[in-house]
């Protein structure tokens, strides 16, 4: 299965991926209309440490703790992609408490959201990848952890 990977050495920490993500998942046709003057709730976020920046989004684990821990039965796997049914989620944050990557966050409306690889929105492929100016974020097939 194709996943999103980030090359730390190439990430500029520009946060463009966050904006592209929020826009792609806004359902709106115009980026200005979707984002200008509004708080954004991206499903990818840039982590900043000691002289290091990189973006993090859902790893789509093969044995996901979030799925097993969800008290609302709102998280499921569809063809390998871990998805949240926002209609079922009650916003208890248990998934936030168990995800070792910090990949889930509230969507601003009281329920949770996470990266679903843009497969269901108008993009059809991860917007963070296509919009990364330094090609630090890639969408590809890999085997085990390297």
């Amino acid at each position, binding site marked *: 299965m194709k996943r999103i990977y980030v090359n730390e050495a190439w990430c500029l920490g520009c946060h463009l991926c966050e904006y592209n993500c929020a826009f792609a998942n806004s359902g709106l046709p115009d980026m200005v209309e979707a984002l200008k003057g509004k708080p954004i709730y991206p499903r990818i976020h840039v982590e900043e440490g000691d002289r290091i920046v990189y973006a*993090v989004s859902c790893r789509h684990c093969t044995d996901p703790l979030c799925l097993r821990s969800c008290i609302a039965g709102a998280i499921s796997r569809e063809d390998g992609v871990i998805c949240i049914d926002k*209609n079922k989620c009650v916003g*208890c944050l248990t998934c936030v408490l168990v995800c070792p990557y910090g990949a889930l966050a509230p969507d601003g409306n009281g329920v949770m959201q996470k990266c679903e690889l843009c497969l269901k929105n108008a993009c059809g492929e991860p917007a963070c990848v296509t919009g990364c100016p330094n090609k630090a974020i890639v969408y590809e097939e890999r085997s085990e*952890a390297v």
Partner: protein
Amino acid sequence: MKKYVIIGNGAAAVSCIEGIRSRDDTGEITVISEEDRPVYCRPLISYYLEDKTDAGRMNYRAADFYEKNGCRVLYGHRAAAIDPAKKTVTAEDGRAFPYDALCIASGASPAAPPLNGLDAVREKYFFTTLDDAEKLKAAVKRDTRVLILGAGLIGLKCAEGCRALTTDITVCNRSKQILSRILDADAAGIVRRHMEKNGVRFLLGCTDMRFEGNRMTAESAAADFDVLVLALGTAPNMAPFKAAGGETGRGILVNERLETSLPGVYAAGDCAEGLDASSGERKIMALMPIACMQGYTAGVNMAGGDRVYDDAFPINSFGFFGLHAMTAGTCGGDMYEERDGEKLKRLFMKDGRLCGFILVGYTARAGIYTSLIREKTPLDALNFELLKKTATTAAFPEAARRKKFGGVV
């Protein structure tokens, strides 16, 4: 063909079915379900009270789950006896079901305390099942005075749910602190004040409670009520197992493969007593995520697999009126604290490792902290100065990050 019997039909039972089916497509699975409905999300019953969800959305699995997994479900039946020699479970109607592997996932039942005059109270309810919630919702009107006994998670979530139905809610508790099993006094104080601001009244430190008609009196307080909710804890459903000679403590004793002392018999969920990896103590960890992991592990092993679940520890994520709090592991040892008004972060360290935490407000990416407890990560191997302030994977050394994010996990 192997025969599987599962007593119970909650999250642990369903996960057990999935565990079995991960290895065995054809074995015969029989589920003995006391409740007369398919599996649903029990922790959501308070959200049901306030219409944040409904019975239609509370399903834990799709409507065709049992059919797809080839399960026979006996609704409205209880298991009366287990015969470990003959390897059968007998239901209350006398039917016997033979098993090669049995999973007891029968959960826990609310405790009814022997309080003076309680028997004579007519309008009293438990709050652990959807049936309970439906009855309570029908009983509480705009001005109904609701009195809740017990200030644990069940009682307080009930209070929050009832607040959408009535303006008059009192929570009464023997202990002077709310949520005393999972929070310390400071964190509990923050949560209590927030609930008070949202219209929940507390009568704490109530000893010697007694009831006369619709009035509760304790040594230091009294309250009149129309509806009483009993939320004073639960007791594991383990009578048939115990009668069959199985080993029990406070719950059914299980090992890391979820095996009990009886051959071919497993237990999972709120009736099981397993090891808390954060403290090394045995305890019942009546939490849905743990029920799920235990059930799945039991199922895999029942079907001849070899799976262990040896990193269980208590975790709680809960919110009241928009204030979120989380706890994990065991408190004690050295403490790092951050406080900002009504936000609180307390990380507890022992032997150079994180063993527990309490977070009120500071909930973002808390799972990174939880992973340190689960993996017993030595804190000197990472940038703890950064990590204690912000839950971030940037605090891990580059090699660890590469492993975490570089491939399939």
